[in-house]
């Protein structure tokens, strides 16, 4: 196609040959393995445990990289390819490490109408991070996300998949950042 502007980058599935980031640890903790095994009998079919198991593995290893996927497949005794397909389909499984505080800002239309896009830029500037990367000290990562279901109370920010911070403005943004710095927000995976 002959387009003067490149398409905007987005979180596309991995390109052939692209490597996933390695985890610090190759195996899950025994507690996590037990929790995943318990999941296998919770649903009518053990395949259904794939998503919840990936959440557990992600919390245990920090992100859902290749090791986490292989471990889930091993514990649940399901094909590795299936787990890979699932983990790369859903955006809430992160294939590379995130910061101790993973901040997600909704910039979809409803939030954007109330300044979501500007707040996202401000957040990136304040923390000196680029979306998709972790800050050098390992503290922060930011992500622009699609609708969080907070349209009436937007703009909306979610830290580490927890309860939302709504009606976000510059003052609230600072309050959230300082709350994270002071350790008042649970860190990623805890």
């Amino acid at each position, binding site marked *: 196609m002959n387009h003067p502007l490149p398409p905007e980058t987005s979180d596309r599935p991995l390109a052939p040959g692209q490597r996933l980031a390695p985890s610090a640890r190759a195996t899950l903790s025994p507690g996590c393995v037990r929790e995943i095994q318990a999941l296998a009998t919770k649903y009518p079919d053990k395949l*259904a445990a794939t998503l919840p198991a990936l959440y557990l593995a992600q919390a245990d290893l920090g992100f859902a990289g290749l090791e986490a996927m292989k471990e889930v497949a091993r514990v649940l005794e399901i094909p590795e390819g299936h787990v890979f397909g*699932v983990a790369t389909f859903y955006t809430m499984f992160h294939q590379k490490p995130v910061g101790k505080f993973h901040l997600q800002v909704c910039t979809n239309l409803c939030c954007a109408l109330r300044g979501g896009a500007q707040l996202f830029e401000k957040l990136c500037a304040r923390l000196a991070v680029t979306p998709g990367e972790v800050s050098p000290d390992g503290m922060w990562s930011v992500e622009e996300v699609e609708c969080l279901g907070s349209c009436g109370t937007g703009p909306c920010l979610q830290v580490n998949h927890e309860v939302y911070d709504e009606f976000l403005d510059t003052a609230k943004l600072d309050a959230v950042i300082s709350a994270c710095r002071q350790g008042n927000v649970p860190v990623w995976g805890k």
Partner: protein
Amino acid sequence: MGQIRTKPDSQIYTFEGFGTDKFPNFMLRGAGNLRNWHIHNYEQRHEGYEALKKALKMEPASVTGEVKASGLRGRGGAGFPTGLKWTFMPKDTDERKHTRYVVCNADEGEPGTFKDRAIMEYNPHQLIEGMIIAAWAMQCSLGFIYIRGEFKWLVDKLDAAIQEARDAGYLGKNILGTGWDFDLLTYRGAGAYICGEETALLNSLEGRRGEPRVKPPFPATKGAFGQPTTVNNVETLASVPVILRIGGAAYAAIGTPNNTGTRIFGVSGHVKRPGLYELPLGTPMDFLVNDLAGGCNSGRKIKAIIPGGCSSPMLDEKDFDCPMDFDAMKARGTMAGSGGVIVMDENVCIVEAVLRLTRFYAHESCGQCTPCREGCNWLEMVLHRIEHGAGKPGDLELIASLTPRINMRTLCPLGDAACGPIDSALEKFRHEFEHHIEHKTCFVKGAKLTSAMGVH
């Protein structure tokens, strides 16, 4: 029990006159009170589980009959009659005993929609009661609540509420002495908008990629785990206890003929009081936007309204008086959808708004059907170059030739949904697109809607 939400909620749920006969409060009882969700509050203050006790004394078929009589239509977007949907479930025969499932679609991801969240936050037991009644009517053995992954605290809350219901004997073995067993499980999605489509949801519930299935077979024949399944929206299921309590005929008297009952409308965007307003179907849109939500917050004129979640075609000012029900909206060329009303004032660049929505669809397309996967990305690229001053003279014709090739040519309605905003914007605000192509800049001087970072 997990951690239950502790942050205060500043959402608006009420208005003057709410809770009277004219504007009955069925769905938002106690909304705003963070302790409202407990079973004792639901039982003592909101007539909780009375409908279930009534339903369990009735034949399953007459429960379905009551829902049919109420005229309840699915609140998720399509507006399909709920009672009729329930009758599609196969009955047990001597040769074959079915394992039937009921699934609640709580994957609320449509931009502009935030109603289900309030129900699960403040009245999870109303949803649970609705699911038990639905399960009784269809004789299901297990129910699932599929919640979007971002609502983690609501998963914890629902788990706690389900446990409360189990302890009270409303769930589990031999429910209220009827000898009937039923239980509920929650399932957390992982951030895919497409899983709001019922067959994609079922795939996701089975632990697969959330790709819509080929229909037929419909879920009522072959749904979750290969068994007959009915998928209903949160608001639909939460309406069922109300119907059983006041009676199908009384429920049908609310609203307009063929569009009965109340529904929760979420108003967002450029209004003074964004929030959730429960209104009888058929209430005019300008009453909601101007009288309840206070009109435009910037003092400027309202340019466009998206009436039912971002997938519905947008309306311009000549249609702001449209009654908000499924049929009237359809007659005006849009759809009532999920009840999310997005208000945009004069300063909004329609091209950029449409670009933002198209970017969403391009990002959320599951990639299964070529027209949607390639088409949405192509639309995004064309809109992107128009918005950024590189539009070519033939671009609008290009868009107009693209959308019919996506619309109705995909397995699920995501492709159709992506075309709705573009087609309607091109029809109603064509001059803005033309201005962009000709002058390389916006027709209006509003704040930007897309960030310069632009990375998902």
